């Protein structure tokens, strides 16, 4: 029995399931909600199956069609892919449950197929070991994400969706040009084979530059974040949640893979630059978040700041720094999804998301406010949350490597986060001046936000087990002691 479960090619199941679910939802729009929820549960189970397989058998390589790299395309799953897949499954299940209460019937018909295809693209991206295949998954991901932003309707959403589409295409094309240069020079598209063959040359430098710029544009690293706040804030709440939690992390994942495996010799001046941009993002995003008057814009700028932290690990480049950074990425995904869901609930309840008028949400939507506060704890990096463990590891890594200035950025960023989270909570408790009509918020929307926020806190307690799982296949050197 156990042998059977381990023998199933879960990597393929994880890619095929969402595609089939998406097609089914497209064919039968009237029952798309139940089909979508069933697919979400199935994908969640399949991720469990894959984790079991990885624990039993170590990192997996799967040759599609039996050809093997370089002729065919390989799938590859190790601890790093697993972390991303688990993140997508947790947030994805949450978003699915939340959306089943959020969308009107007409919107839901479009939402479900797009969302399941987006999920399929994410899974395919986290499992791919082939540079061109990664490009195809990026395209699928980008198109589905743009369509989901536009789902909100209205002028603001359409404008920001259009800008998002153009930025996304530009980023993909930069990436593709880099892939072409690498293929021409080394005759393979497989990441592992390229890692052995790559040697410095002008073409490789050009490829590093092009692919990094393209992916950074999609990841919205400061100062290329200009498209993010508008797109993430104007999308429907569950879409904002998955854009901030998952979609920006996908291009970051590709960059990280390239950085760890294909371009390890390019890590001096360029990695310092990435660290500097990351630090600027942390401070700028935090300051801009403080200045916002709309809740969803505040959360979107907080994403800009949190993405900055991820790049602080590049100049440090120790196993501890990578582990901490990835744990931050993981806990941010859960906390930020919970925050956007909470904002969606407030918007549904009060009909607006002006921070100054969040009167007494505490009494009327206690679960939502609890979710927002718990998520805030993880975003600020207070113990015992997942965000705390992650920042602790990053602090330790920066002290140990003697680059103490990154530690200052970490602390300042945490203070800024505390300032903008408490600003929202403060307004939520103030006395109401104008009574207004209240919308109905379905219970499942409140509970999903709370559960996701709670899991973000829980990550702080289960970190040793999580680090063990992340270390499967040693994606970033031998494990971090701590």
């Amino acid at each position, binding site marked *: 029995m156990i042998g059977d479960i381990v023998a199933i090619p879960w990597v393929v199941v994880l890619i*095929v399931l969402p595609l089939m679910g998406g097609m089914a939802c497209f064919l039968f729009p009237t029952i798309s909600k139940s089909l979508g929820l069933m697919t979400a549960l199935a994908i969640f189970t399949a991720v469990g199956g894959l984790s079991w397989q990885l624990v039993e058998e170590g990192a997996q390589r799967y040759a*599609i069609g039996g050809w093997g790299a370089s002729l*065919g395309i390989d799938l590859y799953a190790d601890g790093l892919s697993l972390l991303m897949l688990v993140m997508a499954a947790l947030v994805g299940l949450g978003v699915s449950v939340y959306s089943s209460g959020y969308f009107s019937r007409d919107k839901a018909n479009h939402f479900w197929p797009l969302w399941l*295809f987006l999920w399929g693209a994410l899974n395919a991206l986290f499992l791919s070991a082939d540079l061109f295949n990664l490009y195809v998954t990026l395209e699928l991901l980008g198109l589905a994400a743009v369509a989901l932003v536009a789902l909100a309707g209205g002028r603001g959403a359409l404008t920001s969706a259009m800008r998002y589409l153009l930025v996304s295409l530009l980023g993909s094309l930069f990436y593709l040009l880099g892939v072409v240069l690498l293929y*021409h*020079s080394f005759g393979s598209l497989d990441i592992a084979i390229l890692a052995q063959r790559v040697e410095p040359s002008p073409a490789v430098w050009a490829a590093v530059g092009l692919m990094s710029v393209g992916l950074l544009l999609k990841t919205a690293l400061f100062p290329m974040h200009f498209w993010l706040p508008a797109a993430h804030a104007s999308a429907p709440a569950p879409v904002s949640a998955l854009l901030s939690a998952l979609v920006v992390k996908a291009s970051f994942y590709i960059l990280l893979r390239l950085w760890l495996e294909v371009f390890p010799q390019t890590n001096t001046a360029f990695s310092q630059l990435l660290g500097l941009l990351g630090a600027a993002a942390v401070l700028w995003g935090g300051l801009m978040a403080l200045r916002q008057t709309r809740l969803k814009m505040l959360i979107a700028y907080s994403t800009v700041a949190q993405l900055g932290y991820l790049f602080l690990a590049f100049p440090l480049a120790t196993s501890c720094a990578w582990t901490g950074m990835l744990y931050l990425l993981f806990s941010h995904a859960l906390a930020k999804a919970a925050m956007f869901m909470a904002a969606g609930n407030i918007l549904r309840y009060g009909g607006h998301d002006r921070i100054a008028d969040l009167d007494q949400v505490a009494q009327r939507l206690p679960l939502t406010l609890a979710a927002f506060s718990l998520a805030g704890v993880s975003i600020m990096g207070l113990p015992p949350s997942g965000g705390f463990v992650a920042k602790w590891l990053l602090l330790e890594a920066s002290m140990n490597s003697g680059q103490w200035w990154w530690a200052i950025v970490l602390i300042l960023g945490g203070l800024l986060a505390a300032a903008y989270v408490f600003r929202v909570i403060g307004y939520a408790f103030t006395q109401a001046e104008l009574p207004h009509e209240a919308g109905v918020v379905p219970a499942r929307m409140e509970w999903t936000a709370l559960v996701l926020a709670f899991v973000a806190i829980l990550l702080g307690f289960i970190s040793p087990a999580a680090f063990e799982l992340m270390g499967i296949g040693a994606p970033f050197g031998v494990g971090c002691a701590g």
Partner: protein
Amino acid sequence: MTANGQTGKTFRLLLVLLLTVMAVGLGYAVLELHSSAGGLSKQVATNLEASGVSNPVTAVLLNFRGYDTLLEMAVLLVALIGVWSLGGIPDYRESSPGPVLDTLSRLLVPMLILVAGYLLWVGTHAPGGAFQAGSVLGAAGVLLLLSGWRLEKIFAGLPLRVILILGLGAFVTAGGGFLLIGNVFMEYPSALAGELILMVEAAATLSIGVTLAALFLGGRPEAGLDK
């Protein structure tokens, strides 16, 4: 000049500077390229026998890297769902075209369908294949739409959607079906590979053609029973 115009001008100058630097850098990198590492054409040639087709392009697209093509079919479908989700159902009444367009489309459409079929068939051993055939089929659809033809409402619901997912569906079924009998995902037994590829390609051609025509129309056709 206003301050706004001034910043616009500086911005444009900066942009030109940045693009020049990039162009020079890229030009240098391309000039410095050594001769190609040879790519994978040799490997493709060695394995062509086992792929089931004799045209290397088709072999790569449908067999060696068929997984990429599978995902590309999903991209096409997502593009259409995205366009449909924007709403804006277009004016969907039948109209009568002028005599020239009418005659032309009567002559051309059967021809285009024939050409699409030929391109699909010839793809196994010569340039051609699903994407080319699909585009020609799509052109036929566009011509029909231009000359005022409209899909009947009764076909605009489930039947249309079935044809739209046919390509992706065939890929997933053909790839996943052999998984159940113990093969690797998308591993076609070489005795059946030729036929399987042709079937998948035929389904993909239909889907591509109809998707392109539907994208041309812009909005989601109104479904429902005809009165």
